[in-house]
């Protein structure tokens, strides 16, 4: 039984089909890549899983729970955390508070307890803060904890967004173009960090990525999409030589 099961997923926007009858699954602790040219519908798939979009057809199940019956803000409680293509960080918060927002659902503190600083709420807050620090230290970005995220370098912000998703201890991490805009050495660091984090926490990853070498290094399976449909599925070394994939990327000869 797979961890995430997507069956016959279809969605269109004003008649334009974004995803058409897509079926795939993610096994526990695996890394599956989702690639394809711009506009292939990759992010749309992520937005269906995280309930930002309502699919026209299809089923999405995660650990035997019907994902489509839930609302966007309930998805993280299920064990699915995500990052965004455009990094949806909170510019008014510093780095550690950004990460702490990822802990929101799991931080047991009541409103009056927080407002009047009852010991239970303060303790829960302190423990979460410590956890966020440890996460930052693990990623080697602890020195930025109290900087405003807007002032930080791009690569650090990307790491903060991943940390914000991971502090919820997800079973499945959805990454939307994590290396976009990164320098080669930053990509290498990111690859290393994700490997270490997975070793520690053991989550699966659904990775949308344009950097093919990053995908081949990271993923066991790659799903290639074009015009909302699957055109190939298999291990990375097979995918890169697949004729349909090549034509989708560089066009028909």
């Amino acid at each position: 039984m797979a961890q995430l099961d997507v069956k016959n997923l279809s969605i269109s926007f004003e008649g334009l089909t974004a995803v058409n009858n897509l079926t795939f699954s993610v096994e526990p602790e695996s890394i599956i890549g989702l690639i394809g040219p711009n506009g292939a519908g990759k992010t749309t798939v992520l937005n269906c899983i995280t309930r930002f979009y309502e699919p026209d057809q299809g089923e999405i199940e995660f650990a035997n729970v019907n994902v489509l019956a839930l609302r966007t803000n309930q998805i993280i409680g299920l064990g699915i955390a995500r990052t965004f293509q455009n990094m949806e960080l909170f510019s008014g918060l510093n780095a550690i508070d950004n990460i702490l927002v990822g802990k929101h659902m799991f931080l047991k503190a009541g409103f009056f307890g927080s407002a009047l600083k009852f010991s239970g709420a303060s303790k829960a807050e302190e423990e979460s803060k410590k956890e966020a620090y440890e996460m930052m230290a693990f990623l080697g970005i602890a020195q930025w904890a109290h900087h405003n995220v807007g002032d930080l370098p791009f690569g650090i912000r990307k790491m903060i967004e991943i940390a914000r998703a991971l502090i919820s201890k997800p079973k499945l991490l959805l990454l939307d173009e994590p290396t976009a805009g990164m320098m080669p050495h930053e990509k290498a660091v990111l690859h290393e960090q994700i490997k270490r984090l997975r070793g520690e926490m053991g989550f699966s990853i659904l990775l949308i990525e344009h950097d093919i070498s990053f995908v081949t290094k990271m993923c066991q399976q790659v799903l290639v999409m074009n015009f909302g449909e699957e055109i190939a599925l298999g291990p990375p070394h097979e995918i890169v030589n697949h004729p349909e994939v090549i034509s989708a990327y560089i066009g028909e000869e």
Partner: protein
Amino acid sequence: MKETLLQKTLEKKSSSLIWALFFAFFIVLPNVVSDFWTYALCLAGIYSIGTLGLNILTGYTGQVSLGHASFVGIGAYTTAILSHKFGFSFWLTMPSAILVTSLVGFMLGLPCLRLKGLYLAVATLAFAWAIPEIILKWSSLTGGYSGISIEALRILGIPLESHIWFYYITLFILCLVIWATYNIVNSKFGRAFIALRDSEEGAKAMGINLSIYKTLAFVLSSAFAGIAGNLYAYLVGTVTPYDFGFWFSIYFLVAIIIGGMGSIPGSILGGAFITFLPLLSSALRNLPNIIYGAMLILVVLLLPGGLMSFVKLMIRKFPATKAGS
């Protein structure tokens, strides 16, 4: 290493010294100024509480409200009616005012959930116009045009005759409200407010229920307005429908912009600003509103973070005062 430790203790000591002086200043202040200025200081404290409430809703949570004064009005009328008609004491009128304004805030917050930006502003504007009209027309309860008079605040049965005691009570309640706001802002609730202001998508993905937190911000801001309204009724002694008109709501908005959006000390500066500037500019008879307008334009142009950004700049420029930051 030793030196830095010494420096730290010194810094800590001078920091608590600065705080002690700061408090001493506000304790002594009403004893050295005239009764009129003590009254104005009370008003500034009350407006600061109201401004803090609006700052939670608009500054921290990003929901524009043009009807904040209406909530202050509802708090003031609840207080006046309960005190005048039912003889309730301060200990009962204060929680009642908070309860009533919170409920109205909740009821206004719900339909406003689907509205954003200018649309939300227009919906709250309708509220700002409606409330004074309702107060005016519902004369059997509110006294209509002439309003309601309210007896002086009594603590332990003794009426407070001088404004100095009223000042201390206002100062105490203001400190409580500041403390609670600080705690809320630095908890998961405050982070949720800021998160949904900065990125609704990011906030939703992190498990924040936008409806609950937007409604909570509405309720909180109304509750603070209720506290302000309660104190206002006792301080001024009468409430009339014209006290809580649309312009008063605009002043609260001016207060958070001038003081600093999403800033607690900024809210206090803003509350003081909308209290004292009209007083000062009317003292200089020939230039009343021109000064007010000019100040507004200058602050908005030169200090986009409000007066609070100026204070922060000064602290950074003169490191001697840094310990107080």
